[in-house]
């Protein structure tokens, strides 16, 4: 030892070296697990794209086995289960995903869709709202939420969300058409016609929008 070393300081330093070394070791191991889980999930995604959902589900489950808090795997597993018609199981996995990551907007949105398919509209609205609290730019979620609100007769709420959807994505023909319908339901036919026309400008083959426009015109006359 050097003549100027203090034994206590040496012990503390050694302790620190050991602690940080273990921390580093844990970091590397954890990241290896993460990479493995990510690789399984990506493989699952590729299989999902090919509609080979059974195999995809196996890969997602492997990912979860390797890293039990890998939220992407939960979400994507839930998606695949949903495609297989196992909506209840898929809802359970979405719930697990949002429990592990409370700001996982995509999972809230997917959960909303699954609940909506189950006819649990109130709960679905709640999940869409959570997704939008995290990211208000999710224009498809704005549209989905508005559809459910309109279904419940809350046209003012629906109009607000349709408008937010088209503000973010002005080329969203469906949202223009839906907004037109909500406005028409409130008796605001002139405004409704403007949005049906916009939907038709974006997609001239949009039959629903054309029919709605004609209906609105006839009602105005």
């Amino acid at each position, binding site marked *: 030892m050097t003549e100027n070393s203090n034994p206590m300081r040496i012990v503390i330093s050694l302790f*620190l*070296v050991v602690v940080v070394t273990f921390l580093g070791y844990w970091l590397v191991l954890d990241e290896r697990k993460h990479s493995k889980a990510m690789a399984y999930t990506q493989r699952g995604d590729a299989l999902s794209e090919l509609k080979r959902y059974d195999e995809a589900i196996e890969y997602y489950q492997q990912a979860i086995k390797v890293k039990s808090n890998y939220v992407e795997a939960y979400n994507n597993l839930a998606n695949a289960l949903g495609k297989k018609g196992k909506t209840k199981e898929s809802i359970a996995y979405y719930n697990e995903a949002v429990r592990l990551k409370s700001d996982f907007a995509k999972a809230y949105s997917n959960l909303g869709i699954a609940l909506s398919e189950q006819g649990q509209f109130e709960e679905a609205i709640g999940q869409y709202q959570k997704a939008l609290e995290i990211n208000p730019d*999710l224009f498809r979620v704005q549209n989905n939420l508005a559809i459910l609100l309109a279904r419940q007769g809350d046209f003012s709420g629906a109009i607000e969300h349709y408008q937010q959807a088209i503000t973010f994505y002005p080329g969203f023909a469906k949202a223009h058409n839906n907004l037109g319908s909500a406005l028409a339901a409130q008796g605001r036919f002139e405004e409704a016609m403007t949005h049906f026309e916009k939907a038709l400008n974006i997609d001239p083959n949009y039959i629903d929008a054309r029919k709605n426009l004609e209906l609105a015109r006839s009602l105005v006359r």
Partner: protein
Amino acid sequence: MEPRINSQKTCLLLVVGIFLMGVVWVRLRLLGVPLERDEGEYAYMAQQLLQGILPYTEAHSMKFPGIYFVYAGILAIFGQSPVAIHLSLLFVNLATVFLLFLLGRNLLGLSAGVAAGVSFAVLTLSPALQGVWANSEHFVLLPAVGGILLLRTAQDRPARFFFSGLLLGCALLIKQHAIFFCLFGIMYLGSKVVTQSQSFKKPFLSCGLFAAGGLAPVIFIALLYGVTGNFSDFWFCTVQYATEYAAMTSPDSGFANFKYNFSQILESNFPILWLSLLGLTSVAWRKEVGREYLFLIGFFACSFLAITPGFYFRPHYFLLWMPALSLLAGVGFASLVSISSSRLKTLVPAAILTLALGLSVWMQKEFFFTLPVIKATRLIYGLNPFPESLEIAQYIRDHSQKTDKIAVLGSEPQIHFYSQRRSATRHLYMYPLMEKHTYARQMQAEMMQEVEGAQPKFVVVANLSGFWVSPDSSPTLKDWAQGYLDSEYEISGVVDILSHEETVYKWDERGYLPQSRYHLLIYKRKT
């Protein structure tokens, strides 16, 4: 005693010489790696600069302009090719190694300096840091380390204070992150004045000269843009948008980014980083190291801060931390040597250094010694079209006039550089247009307008697995591109990146459908 010291030095220098030669050999072997997109941006902007076009006037970028001036110098001296750019990086890296050796020697003697320098050379070569690509961080480090070295050795020599500030100011001008090296300089100088540990005859003059040197490059650039009437472009890109960019990542995601990239660096370089850790703790138990605690801890902390802006923690950002970690590795090495038995003092230093550096090199041996340049690029960047950009650019160059413009709907500015064709739009990257910030829509509208106005001869669309069109982003730009390209352009080339080994190129052939999710479509304007 004297012969032992000499043989110790000889052994040590032999080891260092071998590793440095190895580093040079690896860099020479990988000189031909294709440019990645940041390099492509620097090279394209530098190419424009050489034609008299100031950065930000015809191309947006949030980086300070120093890197473009540096690249312009490189292109002018070494030529306009990836090899030329990477050769210049070799020189810059070696110069930084030398400065770090001087700094280490000044701090704690020859062995610490030697170990710091060679550790830096090995660490900055690491694929986990994307070290063989000429990222701006390499060019920040040379003036930053030079400035700090001058500051340490300034004593009462006024010119050194000025040049120290000047070098740190130049580092800042290359990348905003270097502000933390400037901060370290200010804090270090301030501590010297306050504690009077350095006998300053004229503290105000020294501090004033340091500040004047530091501000000189910044004022020069501000004046340059002010006089040419482009200050608002410069300000928007480097301050307004850059501020938005830096605020986009949450601390949670930031931690995940740090963990992901640092673990890879740690995994492949742990012996050297373990020496750094030892060096850091030896501040507490070695008096000669403890005397320099302010410098060592301060430099370590400020260098860490330099990698944090925006919480992106991209692999090459970590390069900014490497001088501090290398210095600490040098300190750790010197500390280990100091506690080794005096009988073994001839061999122990060389053995420790060989083990630490050798293990790091061995763990990365495939990248360093075996993989051909394209495979080495694939290993780091996956299916990004960096190798393909050369052939795409060649096709564009062969089928267009020098005055023709091109557009790239993606983030591949290296295509502009290789093809030597100007961009139809100021937006070389699509990232800023698709990110969530105040200016995204304005930027999208600008891009659409600029492309339609310029009527580029070729438009390259990079479809890289939903790279720039994520389900969460507004499809406005995608809709526009689809409509515009369908009406005014026809596909003249398809580049289908099937795997790490295989890419299919189809030029002037109709009907080929890409198989891969990573493909590029080259559209030619209808005549």
